[in-house]
């Protein structure tokens, strides 16, 4: 009886998973391995080896990697500082970091467009200070900037979470047994936050790899990521088969990166994504 009740309660979630996750993936797989007339072909998947697509994929991997590393470099020290603060202040600062996420991320990226543009706020300020004007917008650097800005909270939160769960007594014990500050960090803090770091990396790397909106808005149509190629196949060329084929390849990359991270995550204590 109890089991039946539980199964009943999971009904909506099963409907959700089947309708909005499994079915769409099946549809994409079907389109990906068929051509316009519906017969089987691997051409859409092999199409990734075309120089243009390879270039877009490599650029996506590169920008996603750079964004992830930057996020990590910014987040880890920040999480440490946060963790050292009084508990009351901690929650307030975490709140500050989560606050921008209350606003639609498109709006925030559009705001950056205004700030970084040739005649934008940044250049106006530079000019007023007598500094040379910079053209930042519509470059790969601007896209990386947008990604870091957007995905930073996804890196901070899991690292902070894993860090705040390390009990003070563990650190005290290590000190008692003669560890210096550096040893405490290397032998206690770092290993115990690996799971948080790994899930942070996945939460930043995966959306950065598949993003196309940020590169559209901050790249001025000059930065072609694999996500933009797929969008173009769907929206402009009406070639759903090719778009799906490339999506499958991208999914393989996403799954591979997650599997790679997972295999390195031996602690896996719940801060991990899966």
């Amino acid at each position, binding site marked *: 009886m109890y089991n039946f009740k539980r199964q009943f*309660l999971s*009904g*909506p979630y099963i*409907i959700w998973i089947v309708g909005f996750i499994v079915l769409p993936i099946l549809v994409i797989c079907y389109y990906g391995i068929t051509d316009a007339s519906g017969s089987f072909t691997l051409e859409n998947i092999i199409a990734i080896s075309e120089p*243009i697509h390879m*270039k*877009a994929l490599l650029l996506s991997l590169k920008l996603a990697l750079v964004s992830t590393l930057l996020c990590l470099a910014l987040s880890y020290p920040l999480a440490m500082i946060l963790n050292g603060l009084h508990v009351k202040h901690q929650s307030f600062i975490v709140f500050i970091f989560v606050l921008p996420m209350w606003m639609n991320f498109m709006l925030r990226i559009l705001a950056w467009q205004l700030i970084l*543009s*040739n*005649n*934008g706020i940044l250049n106006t300020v530079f000019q007023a200070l007598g500094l040379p004007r910079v*053209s930042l*917008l*519509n470059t790969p650097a601007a896209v990386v900037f947008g990604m870091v800005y957007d995905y930073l909270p996804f890196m901070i939160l899991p690292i902070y979470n894993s860090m705040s769960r390390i009990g003070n007594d563990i650190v005290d014990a290590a000190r008692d047994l003669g560890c210096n500050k550096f040893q405490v960090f290397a032998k206690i803090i770092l290993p115990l936050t690996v799971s948080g770091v790994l899930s942070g990396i996945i939460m930043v790397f995966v959306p950065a790899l598949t993003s196309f909106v940020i590169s559209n808005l901050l790249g*001025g*149509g*000059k930065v*072609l990521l694999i996500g*933009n*190629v797929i969008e*173009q196949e*769907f*929206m*402009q*060329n*009406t*070639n759903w088969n090719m778009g799906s084929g490339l999506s499958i390849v991208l999914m393989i990359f996403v799954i591979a990166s997650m599997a790679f991270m997972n295999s390195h995550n031996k602690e896996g204590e719940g801060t991990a994504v899966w």
Partner: protein
Amino acid sequence: MKKKISVFAALFFVSALAIGCGSSPDNKETLTVLNYGKYFDPEALKLFEEETGIQVEYEEYESPEEMYTKYKAGSIDYDLLCTSDYIIQKLIDEGEVLEMKHENIDEYKNIDANIIDASSAFDPDHKYTIPYFYGTVGILYNTDEVDAAETNTWDVLWNDKYSGKIIMENSVRDCFLVPLKQLGYSLNTTDEKELKEALQKLLDQKPLIYAYFVDETGDEMAAGNASLAVTYSGEAAYAQSLSDNLAYSVPKEGSNLWIDSWFLPKTCKNQENAEKFLNFLCREDIAKMNFDYVYYATPNTAVYDNLDDETKNDKTIFPDSSVLDNCEVYLSLDEEGTNLYNQLWKELKSN
């Protein structure tokens, strides 16, 4: 307590789904219209609903390719569509367009015969369409930074004096028309050699480009973020309304004349209501409302004749006939041509 809430939420979700699926359409007369964004005065829509009692389900899209994808997906049966010349031709060729009974649309008499004539490029026997707005593609430039004489030719877009201050169209055909016309080719060419040459020109130009934009162009130019932009005459007129130091020019090598028209797609279920709607939008007062709202060149002679001289002489909106003679209408490309353009487009973007 928490558990109770989640059970409640789940039940609510399921029942909402059930209600959502179960609702059946009532018998009220409706008309489903698909049109470009910002391309019909909402007040006029309200007027139509009041006058006829027909409820309009009005939907919008951004690019003709997006419209094609949306229409072809087939999840909504549209009664009436408005889009650009070459996509209409493509749909006519695919047998997706119903013949229109122009004789049922009294106010069709208002439409300029010259523009109807020009639409024979995509609708040879005038069986399928009614022109809505038309215009050109040209150069919008900042008069403080660019000399008007320079914009007489597309060459100005390769002048490295304007490096980092040039905006190109972020749409494959509008972008390729520039080098094609500059090289003296047709903008409907599918010749691989000619197109490769055009691609090379665009690649040479890419380091000078600020961005590839479509709808942002007007705002970006008004904000002074760039000095030169390739854009539609309507977008140019919009930008000029925001800023005084902008002007528009159609280069002497020629350009594109585009005609956005209404047609009845095969999915049309209520031809009579669609005709009522078409008649309504051809009527002088409504066409005037839409002209004021959209501010593109209207083919409605009744509206044009009653405009003040200043508007009539606004060369951005109403180009001279000598300019129009120099312009070509887009024709739809065959599949091979489309794929070639798309391939070259990706090559341009990825380099």
